[in-house]
């Protein structure tokens, strides 16, 4: 780390109707440094980053870039100054190719600036991707890529501006450990090149590996800045939440019974699954572990009728059932919380109340189809409270919530709806430590009430902590079903990589 100060933020405030998102905060960044910013969902992290990258206008305060006062008026000005950002939500043009996305607005031209030079565009993109060691094809259409790969496109795009300051707002929330390490290598190289990186993440264990300093925000206010090597995760958590939080690593009480509610035998699907068998008991939390592409999400999609089943048998409560489309899954009482909240989970333009009640509308309407507004409001307000969703009221439009709070709304929606079998796919993505604890508690309560839960998660500690049994998958097959007592990270990783060289 050199002493050159790239960025100094002082006394910045920013308010929205009903919310003071930032109140007199400060932050600074030196060349060759990774400065992490942490805080609960809704603490104001993304808001500050949007101020720095010209998307929001600050209400007051100063931003100094390389010693000079600047007013970043828009994304283009941020680019010119040398500040680039990887947004928390993926912001790409799905119909354009990887290369077209990366160089949008900076396309190489030929014949006196009149025409695009797509050959050079693809070549430049390929060189950039190679130098970052990202396995992407520049000519592939972005909409056809997985979320993780789209995230890599975002990373490549942000770095291609060759900016002095690079902001990464939860870049790893949809990446696996392998991809995350690849990103850390990239970040190390950026540091060596004298750039400054602002790094936001709810995976606090990452901070020890990558950051030099950590700043904590709480409720829109600056709390403290600490040197990473002089602090602990526990200390950071207590600064974030304002009190001690007991992070429990022991498995919770097992509430599973011997009654099998879901039995899957020899399930295969067109896309990936081969001969998948397992059963789920009443009151059980069944964890699904595995690497990306192991087929965990595909199991869920087959069970809710989104992916056609080509072979095998599914029994619900002892009866063989046919699940041909999503309505069948719903009728059988199987609920699915998707890993891709923007596309399948949330109506961004509707308010919080509407979103929470959405899948249980029937329960909150009269025989004639009129909506019981007061009753539904009571329920959604209760959900907002239990999950501590940070919103001025349940009438707030979903898109105005912070990323983590949007995820909580999706969870609230599925908790409100009474399903006997619930499938949660990456439920705690982007959620802060405190709220995670709340969600774990709720899942455990649901299980104790006799619901059965399948939980797919890429975070092993979470799987280990919550599951009664763990199904491990690799390349579309089940490679092991382990009792929690016998499971640890090593055992799971062994099964998860069984078919890999």
């Amino acid at each position, binding site marked *: 780390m050199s002493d050159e100060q790239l960025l100094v933020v002082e006394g910045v405030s920013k308010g929205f109707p009903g919310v003071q998102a930032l109140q007199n905060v400060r932050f600074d960044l030196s060349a060759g440094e990774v400065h992490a910013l942490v805080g609960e969902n809704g603490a104001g992290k993304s808001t500050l980053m949007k101020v720095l990258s010209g*998307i929001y206008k600050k209400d007051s305060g100063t931003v100094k870039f390389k010693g000079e006062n600047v007013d970043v008026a*828009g*994304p*283009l000005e*941020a*680019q010119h100054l040398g500040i680039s950002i990887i*947004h928390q939500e993926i*912001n*790409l*043009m*799905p*119909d*354009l*190719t990887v290369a*077209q996305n990366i160089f*949008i*607005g900076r*396309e190489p*031209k030929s014949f006196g600036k*009149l*025409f*695009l030079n*797509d050959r050079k565009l693809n070549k430049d993109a390929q060189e950039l991707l190679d130098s970052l060691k990202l*396995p*992407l*094809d*520049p*000519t*592939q*259409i972005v909409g*056809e*890529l*997985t*979320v*993780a*790969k789209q995230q890599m496109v975002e990373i490549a795009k942000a770095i291609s501006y060759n900016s002095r300051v690079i902001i990464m707002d939860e870049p790893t929330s949809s990446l*696996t450990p*392998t*991809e995350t390490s*690849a990103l850390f290598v990239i970040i190390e190289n950026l540091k060596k090149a004298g750039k400054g990186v602002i790094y936001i993440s709810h995976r606090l264990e990452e901070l020890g590996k990558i950051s030099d300093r950590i700043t904590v925000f709480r409720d829109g206010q600056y709390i403290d800045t600490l040197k990473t090597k002089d602090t602990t995760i526990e200390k950071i958590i207590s600064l974030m939440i304002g009190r001690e939080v007991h992070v429990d690593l022991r498995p919770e009480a097992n509430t599973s019974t011997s009654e099998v509610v879901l039995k899957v035998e020899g399930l295969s699907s*067109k*896309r*990936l699954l081969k001969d998948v068998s397992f059963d789920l008991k009443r009151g059980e939390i069944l964890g699904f572990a595995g*690497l*990306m*592409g*192991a087929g*965990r*999400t*595909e199991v869920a*999609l087959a069970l809710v009728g*989104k*992916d*056609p089943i080509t072979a095998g048998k599914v029994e619900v409560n002892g009866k063989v059932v046919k699940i041909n489309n999503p309505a069948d899954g719903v009728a059988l009482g199987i609920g699915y919380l*998707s890993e*891709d909240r923007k*596309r*399948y989970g949330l109506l961004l333009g509707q308010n919080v109340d509407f979103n929470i009640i959405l899948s249980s509308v029937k329960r909150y309407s009269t025989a004639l189809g009129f909506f019981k507004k007061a009753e539904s409001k009571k329920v959604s307000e209760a959900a907002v409270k239990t999950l501590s969703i940070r919103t001025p009221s349940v009438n707030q439009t979903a898109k105005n919530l912070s990323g983590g709070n949007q995820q909580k709304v999706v969870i609230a929606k599925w908790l409100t709806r009474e399903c006997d079998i619930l499938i949660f796919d990456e439920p705690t993505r982007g959620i802060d430590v405190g709220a995670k604890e709340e969600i774990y508690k709720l899942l455990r309560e649901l299980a104790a009430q006799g619901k059965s839960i399948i939980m797919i998660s890429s975070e092993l500690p979470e799987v280990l902590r919550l599951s009664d049994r763990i199904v491990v998958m690799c390349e579309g097959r089940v490679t092991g079903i382990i009792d929690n007592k016998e499971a640890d990270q090593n055992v799971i990783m062994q099964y998860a990589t069984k078919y890999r060289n």
Partner: protein
Amino acid sequence: MAAKTSIGHDESQAKGGLVASIRRQAEQSLAFASLVLIFIFFSFANSAFYSWSNISGILLSTAVTGMLAIGTTFVIITGGIDLSVGTGTTLTAVMTAYFLSDLKMPFAIGIVVGLTSGALMGAINGLLITILKLPPFIATLAMMLIAKGLALVISGVAPIYTDSVSGWDQIALGNLIPNLPNAVLILFVSAFLASIVLNRTIVGRYTFAIGSNEEATKLSGINVNKWIVIIYAIGGLFTGMAGILLTSRLNSAQPALGAGYELEAIAAVIIGGTSLLGGKGSILGTVIGSLIMAVLINGLRIMAIQQEWQTVVVGIVIIIAVYTDSLRRRKDRS
């Protein structure tokens, strides 16, 4: 829904670009194949269909709405819509004829007036959409009415004849290439140029980018408002071109002719595989879509099917075209 896949360089990924480009070509050849099939069907059904004079008649009849469809393609790829191109054609035709006949302006001025009035109308649509933030449907619906009214006012509700301008009818009806009306030649040259603009220039790239994700385009530092105005103005330029062709073909401007053309143009664009949701589309597809409509109408007419039923058939064809398209898209996804 996207499948989770591993980080490794798997084969499907390496082939992704190629597969995608082959698929895109296949989509187009699907529309092309339907055109050929319809063509062959009518050729067998009635011998009068398969003659050069009939075919060049078909082509001539596509010239005006085909031109509008090309302009509309740009607008629809941004995720917008332009309902004003039909009566816009009337207005540009009336403007052109007014300058030529009433003001006795020379030939070249007529062309300039036609093109600029079209582009201006498009630009105003763009400004209504970006500055006043009106939805494209509303902004261009209003413009449709304004253009209709202005055309009636300027023309005094009577045709304006352009036969005083020597050679004006040759723009559409002359034969630079023997036996081929110039209007058809102009349509194909315009389509070629439009295709280059859409695929090889920055305007084209931003047209797709805005239709694909306007917010992300904005966040990439692109002045989306400016480009939307430009894109609607380009659409308007083709409206102006259509107006010129129409006056030339009729050697007059008819103040009531043009309303409804916008729907034919939109239908051609959709049949050609351009998505109403934005982000996807091609000029070649639009040209094929226009031809499918023109061949159908001509063929049905030759088979002496009543006008009323012709319209019904076109409606059904749109349903089939869009349904097969969405079916294929759904298959792609799973």
